[in-house]
């Protein structure tokens, strides 16, 4: 065993900074990564195959388990796709409720992503637990609405499953009141921290050309300076009626991705406030047949999930179950550039880069 020779290092499947059962086999020379092989599939459940045997409604819980940190967003994407396929129009109140919950989920997911990124940069879990404080409150709101915290299964084809309880709105308002201050607090703590900047600035730079070519989406794409947000470009759930802006980074490094997430949290707060103001009364759900049989056809419907472009490609053959359902998983596709980013950099930089791309292994493996 010598220092000058290339050797192999297994990062994962059990490793503090792989965020799950994700494995990277790296060939290292000293502290420098010379080759990288990404090995996924430890959490593969073949959801796409399983969903061919279940009805359209029964497939909703699978979407929870794909991206378990953004279950609401995944529910939403799937339900919108099936509604498009089956021509179901949800009531107005359901649409606004969906926006509220999807944006709350985005805040929770971004809090988790940024917390783990700072943890990967070596802060001893303090920022992570600070961010968890807000995430816990959001999960409490989810729990009082639909009984589950992580795998919510809240959205339904043609609406949402439950009306939020009465005590939901004061708690939500309280949370919205304190969230901007909390976000500013984290920005004070982290965005000007010399060590944090030294660890993330100019680490894992993705050029806009590469980001577009490698099909990156979400904060990973916007961090590179590409202003692409499906909520603006292809509005769903009446997002065109809300006023919000899309933050984009300057250089495309890990720090920019971190900051883009921070700013998106602020924008999400704005959206939730507007949605609460114009929450119409009425039904939260339309009646749909128990075994929905859409007309034969196909749909590729995309929403802007917390991790990026979350697409559902569904083909119906007129039966009660989808003929084929494919999830366009942003976590997997955002990893396309991992090898290019990591090779030539050092191990700590690779860990920070991986943390800034923000993967969820449930969604990678499906």
């Amino acid at each position: 065993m010598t220092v000058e020779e290339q050797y192999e290092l297994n990062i994962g499947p059990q490793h503090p900074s792989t965020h799950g059962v994700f494995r990277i086999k790296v060939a290292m020379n000293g502290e420098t990564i010379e080759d990288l092989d990404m090995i996924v599939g430890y959490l593969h459940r073949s959801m796409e195959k399983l969903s061919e045997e279940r009805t359209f409604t029964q497939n909703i819980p699978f979407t929870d388990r794909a991206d378990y940190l953004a279950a609401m967003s995944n529910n939403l994407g799937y339900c919108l796709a099936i509604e498009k396929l089956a021509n179901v129009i949800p009531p107005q109140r359901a649409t606004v409720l969906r926006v509220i919950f999807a944006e709350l989920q985005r805040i929770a997911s971004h809090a988790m992503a940024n917390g783990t990124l700072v943890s990967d940069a070596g802060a001893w879990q303090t920022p992570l637990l600070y961010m968890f404080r807000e995430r816990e409150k959001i999960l409490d709101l989810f729990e009082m609405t639909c009984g589950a915290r992580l795998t919510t299964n809240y959205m339904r084809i043609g609406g949402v499953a439950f009306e939020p309880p009465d005590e939901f709105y004061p708690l939500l308002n309280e949370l919205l009141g304190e969230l901007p201050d909390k976000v500013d607090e984290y920005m004070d703590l982290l965005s000007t921290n010399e060590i944090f900047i030294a660890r993330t600035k100019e680490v894992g730079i993705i050029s806009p050309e590469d980001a577009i070519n490698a099909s990156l989406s979400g904060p990973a794409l916007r961090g590179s300076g590409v202003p692409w947000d499906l909520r603006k470009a292809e509005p769903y759930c009446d997002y065109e009626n809300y006023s919000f802006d899309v933050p984009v980074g300057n250089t495309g490094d890990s720090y920019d991705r971190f900051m883009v997430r921070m700013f998106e949290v602020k924008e999400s707060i704005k959206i939730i406030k507007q949605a609460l103001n114009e929450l119409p009364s009425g039904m939260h759900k339309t009646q749909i047949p128990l075994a929905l049989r859409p007309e034969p056809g196909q749909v590729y419907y995309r929403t802007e999930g917390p991790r990026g472009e979350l697409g559902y490609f569904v083909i119906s053959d007129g039966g009660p179950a989808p003929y084929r359902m494919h999830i366009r998983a942003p976590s997997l596709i955002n990893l396309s550039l991992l090898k290019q980013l990591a090779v030539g950099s050092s191990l700590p930089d690779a860990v920070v880069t991986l943390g800034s791309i923000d993967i969820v292994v449930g969604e990678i493996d499906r």
Partner: protein
Amino acid sequence: MIELTAYNFSFIMMTLITILPALGIAFVNSLMRSLLLLILSFIGVAGLFVLLSADFIAIAQLLIYAGSISILLLFAVMLTPEISINNENSKYFLLASLGAILFLYLMILLITIFDLNQLTGNALNKLDFDNTIEQIGTLLLGKYIIAFELASVLLLFALIGAISIVRSSESDFDVKIKDSK
């Protein structure tokens, strides 16, 4: 038989800590283990220096031998690959042991033949040097100043030399060796 005072007891312990690991280096096959034994032996020598009331030298011994030269050796072992981990005896094993035993015999003969008491004399009564550091410092920067300066120059040259020797595989030195083939 020697009296078992605290001093004598310490002396025997330190001698054992010095000699046994040193012997171990000769008979252990793993280079890493022999390095560990070498460090132990250095620590034992430092203990002997303490018993000789040379406190500064003892600390310097710990600092330079146990703390620095051992690290250098570690790096050397790490920079040369696995075949260098073994620490086998060479074909001169018998010759070496013969030579060592002969040397030891001669030395013990010398030590016992000479009446060392006439050398040691009244110094035995004087148990301790008090505060060696200041006097060593005065000596180094006074009486032995030229030697001191030369030693620092030597260190500098050693530093530069070591760097220039290992700097690159295709150094001038290396090329010359290849040319002479």
